[in-house]
């Protein structure tokens, strides 16, 4: 059975696997951070948030010295599952670590998600 955990992430409970909600493709074991099963891309934030003023620093965009965008894509369909805005080189966020055993107990008996 598949349980939808976020906008873009399902968990296949029998196989204990993170899957893409859009294409159904497998990402990685549900006991691992799903980000390990994604494709990752680092962006200069100004590619998305173009500076509004011409000031070199205070221009209503992000300063790439301070922050970069990391985008996480489904390797099968290319949907953007999540992103992070982090200082360059900062460790990533293991943002969702569901208690898989508790999740299985909750859905034991085939209840709908």
């Amino acid at each position, binding site marked *: 059975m598949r349980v939808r955990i976020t*906008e873009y992430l399902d968990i296949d409970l029998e196989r204990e696997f993170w899957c893409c909600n859009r294409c159904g493709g497998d990402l990685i074991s549900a006991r691992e951070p799903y980000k390990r099963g994604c494709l990752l891309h680092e962006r200069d934030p100004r590619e998305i948030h173009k500076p*509004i*003023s011409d000031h070199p*620093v205070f221009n209503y965009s992000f300063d790439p*010295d301070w922050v970069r965008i990391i985008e996480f894509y489904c390797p099968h369909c290319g949907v953007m599952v999540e992103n992070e805005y982090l200082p360059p080189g900062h460790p990533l966020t293991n943002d969702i670590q569901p208690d898989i055993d508790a999740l299985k107990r909750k859905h034991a008996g085939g209840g709908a*998600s």
Partner: protein
Amino acid sequence: MTSLRDQIKLHEGLVYDRHAYGKGPGWDPELIVEKAAPLSAIEREGYDLLSDVELEIFYHKMLTIVEEAREVWQNLSISDIILAGDMSTAVFTPSGDLAVASTGIHFHALLNYAQSKFILKYYRDDPTVGLRDGDIFFFNNPLAGSTHAPDMFTAMPVFHEGELVAWAEVGGHQGDCGSVSPGGFNPYATSRFEEGFHMAGVKIGENFRIRKDMLDYLCGSVRNPFVFAVELRSRVATCLRMRDRILREVERRGPAAVSGGLRRLIDRSSELASDRLRQINDGVYRSILFNDTIGAEKGLVRIPVTVIKEGGEMTILVQGVSPPNGKGPVHATWHLVRASQAVYLFAYFFRGLMPNVGLFEPLTFLIEGPSVANSPEDVAHTEGTIISAAVVQSFHIIGSKMLFDSPFRENVSAPFSRNMVALVFYGSNLFGYRATGITSTGNGAGQGARFDGDGEHSTGFYWASMTDAGEVEEFDARYPFTIIARGLLGTDYHGFGMYRGGSALIEVSMAYPNPVVMTSWGTSDVISHNPGLFGGYWGPPNPRLTITKNDALKLMAEGALPELTHHSLAAERQLGGDYAFESSSVNPKEFEIGDVFLCDTGSGGGYGDVLERDPEAVMTDVREGMISADVASRVYRVVYNEETLRVDHAATEALRNEERQARIARGKRFDDFIGGWLAQKPKEHLLTYYGDWPDPRVPGYDKPFWGEHD
């Protein structure tokens, strides 16, 4: 089976479940970290007197009392920040716990208990102070439980035939507190001794009246004595109205039923909060934000949040925080971080449940100290809300991730904007008296995008569920400046996504009819505290802009002032003059008549993948000026006719598929990506106040995910 909470490894030598400072004159942090007090004699006597139905009716009665009090205060006040709703009115149990709160600032109501509990423990039986019917108490000391010195709290005990049956309390932001800087916010303060007067549970009145000597002392300590005096009287009048109404309930139901009923409301909220938690998936959830200022200087500061949800309980762990720096006012306290979470919890996560301290009972807060989140005693505190709100923003993201697969998905959203640039003005107003305070245009922050729709524009004040941004004409009269333009248009100035963030209310004001002193504080000048959710892009940074030696007055005289928007000023420099784009944190400075200021509190983050936004919604954004043609095609990948704004759906789908393929082509597998990523590091001068890189508390941390220290 090991509990999830057992996985938490706290660092030795740091404190988590209490403050990083000890007892002092007027404060006792041990009292502040306690949960709701055990039942007192009168609370126990009356606990079961009301049936479930009667309790419900009693709650609604009490709610009308605090809501009426809110209106009383707003009708009597002449302080803009109170009129705009930066305030709360509440009823507390005889033991001093929050039982019923108005729709104002919930976190104020969650701080006020510190005062009553201190009075009960230390002053009630002290022959030089005592606690009697008609007493009026006042506190604003951050160490004693306040937010920062400009947040001021007034409390009155409610006695019935000599027995304490409840407390009537109000809290709200004040225009000035006698700080070195007008308005109380001084980005350059290095210790609390530069931040104005600090009073902790001081008896300022007896026999239902404010003492003249105390009123003179307080008014003599601030820059806006007229406003302050009116304000203090309106607070006391508000408490008196609540007292009258509570006593009417006491006469109707008996004192024990009222006291016990108030206490039971707390337990009821606690049970309902646990019930809701049990319907949410167990797990460990994380989110992290960084701040870009310590006040006077730019510098990277880390604020990570981990939430462990298990059964009917939840632990909020703030660990791996940058150490205190003692160089600026961006230091929060343990109680401020805890209370601030009501902003998210009461309005979203626990929406629909009775907002009182009971909702906090199933929660455990572990806030690492000494740190910028749980600061030591003598640092400056005024901008500690930057830190506590950063925790709220992360909690909001975490909460949305918890609630998506739950019966409460309707509460899933990106957070409210918290990218502050707060302009604080000081000068003479049109009435001729001195006024100071923050412009409450800050109350028009943009909402984060929701799971099923765009964020609302100009929704309200970050801290409160019901606020107003004030009337322009009233501002012009009461504040020492004049608003020359106000609107929503901040082109490309929100978070993009399948659903976009809401835009801030943007205010353009002018020093007129007198010169003014203006200082400002804030955060998010080069980074942001407005995260997106599930792949939505973030709300952008928000630095300060002032335009001096400009031609606005001349254009106004000629009737030729164009429509001023965020974009037309910042990008096109529509007015002539000197443009100063700078950090939000600037010391007080004098401005000449005609100088112009741009103010807003930022826009919300987006929700979901931009490639999934309805192309017609993208066209609406273009038509309304919310986004540029460039963003429509470059970010949203919509193909359309630039004159008619007609979408070519087939070409759009093809272009979007092309971008999805491009993502797959450029994206790297985790193992191929992570080494190169972790080898980077911010420039050394950005890390002066950070602590060890990348984990401020764990030298040499080298794991790919944060928060996994041994």
